[in-house]
């Protein structure tokens, strides 16, 4: 069990007063994969990640990261040696220079890789002698990423890693993610940028209002999610299409648009049986899937 999954949670919950930021979350994140953790602002992504790392205490439920209980202090320390993490707010010491920050971090980790450090310093064009407090948001993100990527962790957890990066920076980020993954590092990263997720992720989890809305492989998503546009001579018989796999139905005059997460063939079949004038089936991108899934909720 512990070998197959790098992250496992069971009914993980976090409440702040009456507000439940994370509600009974069951996550199982596979090893040697790039998993994207998607959701709108405030969906509970950062709260979940902070609980996984033991930075905040769950109100209820349990979880383990690399087989270590997240609420056990001793096990948490063990786990943190093998997990690299980039926090949402990229906390760094403002009075240090970029170079001092890197030297400082390097001294903590036995798995530090000078070659990666040097490469990223060049790729990210980080000014070695500049004080951290005078760096732009994008530069801070790059420095925080360098500190995580320069290690050789078993698991990399990134909270909004592309925040503040320009398109060139995002390109370097994705390339570094891919090369880490090729070296066998499991990656779990949160994002609300669909385009960057769409190419590199093997698996996506969509969180909405603290609950898991979707947990699917990206291959499967491409293979089975379809939009079916149907035209009838009369008014569309919407109720006949409420079959399993149909996520949403919209009608406009004689036209009807069905969004199916699977079973698209059954929808097409039914349309034929009900003498539809035309049936067109098209794949949907992750962006549409996200908007439909989160929108319907």
């Amino acid at each position, binding site marked *: 069990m512990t070998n197959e999954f790098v992250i496992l949670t069971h009914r993980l919950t976090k409440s702040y007063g009456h507000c439940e930021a994370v509600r009974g979350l069951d996550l199982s994140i596979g090893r040697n994969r790039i998993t994207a953790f998607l959701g709108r602002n405030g969906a509970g992504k950062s709260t979940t990640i902070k609980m996984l790392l033991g930075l905040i205490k769950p109100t209820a439920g349990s979880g383990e990261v690399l087989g270590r209980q997240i609420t056990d202090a001793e096990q948490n320390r063990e786990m943190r040696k093998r997990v690299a993490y980039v926090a949402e707010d990229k906390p760094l010491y403002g009075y240090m220079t970029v170079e001092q920050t890197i030297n400082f971090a390097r001294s903590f980790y036995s798995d530090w890789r000078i070659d990666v450090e040097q490469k990223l310093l060049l790729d990210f064009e980080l000014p070695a002698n500049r004080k951290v407090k005078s760096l732009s948001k994008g530069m801070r993100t790059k420095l925080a990423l360098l500190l995580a990527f320069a290690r050789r962790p078993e698991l990399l957890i990134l909270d909004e890693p592309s925040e503040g990066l320009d398109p060139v920076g995002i390109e370097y980020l994705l390339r570094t993610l891919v090369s880490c993954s090729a070296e066998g590092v499991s990656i779990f990263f949160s994002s609300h940028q669909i385009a960057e997720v769409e*190419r590199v992720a093997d698996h996506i989890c969509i969180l909405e209002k603290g609950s898991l809305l979707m947990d699917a492989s990206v291959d499967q998503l491409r293979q089975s999610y379809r939009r079916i546009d149907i035209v009838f001579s009369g008014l569309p018989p919407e109720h006949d299409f409420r079959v399993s796999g149909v996520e949403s139905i919209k009608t406009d005059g004689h036209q009807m648009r069905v969004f199916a997460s699977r079973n698209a063939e059954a929808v097409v079949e039914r349309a034929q049986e009900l003498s539809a004038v035309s049936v067109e089936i098209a794949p949907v991108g992750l962006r549409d899937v996200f908007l439909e899934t989160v929108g319907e909720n």
Partner: protein
Amino acid sequence: MLSRCIFTLIQLNDMFFKLNPITGQPLYVQLMQQIRHATETGALQDGEQLPGIRTLAEKLLVSPNTIAKAYSELEHEGLLELRQGSGAFVCVKGRIRSLADSVRVARRRIRDLIDRLRDDGLVDEEIRRAFEAELLFPAEVASKR
């Protein structure tokens, strides 16, 4: 030989493999089709080496699992040979000729079919859509029949 090999790799990366995240096909399937196509047209020849999993993943900016899956499926089909530690090699001995012949026969059949469909009164756009539907979503189309 070396320079030819390098040229091929660059060409492969920049020209042949274009993965589209928006279409309804998994990226590994797209990559498999493009490698198959490259061997059919002779752009990739017997014994030629494909870029390593990591190199191609970084180049195309996709998960290494995507490349690994495509390579391993193609190995299953017998089109690639994966050698431990040294990469993927194209393996089309004896296949190419018969494939080229088959493609020629197929094109003639398709031409005949298109002529018949035009006689039935279908316009080219409708024919094209029907072909695409059959190719892209065989399962969904099959259920109509």
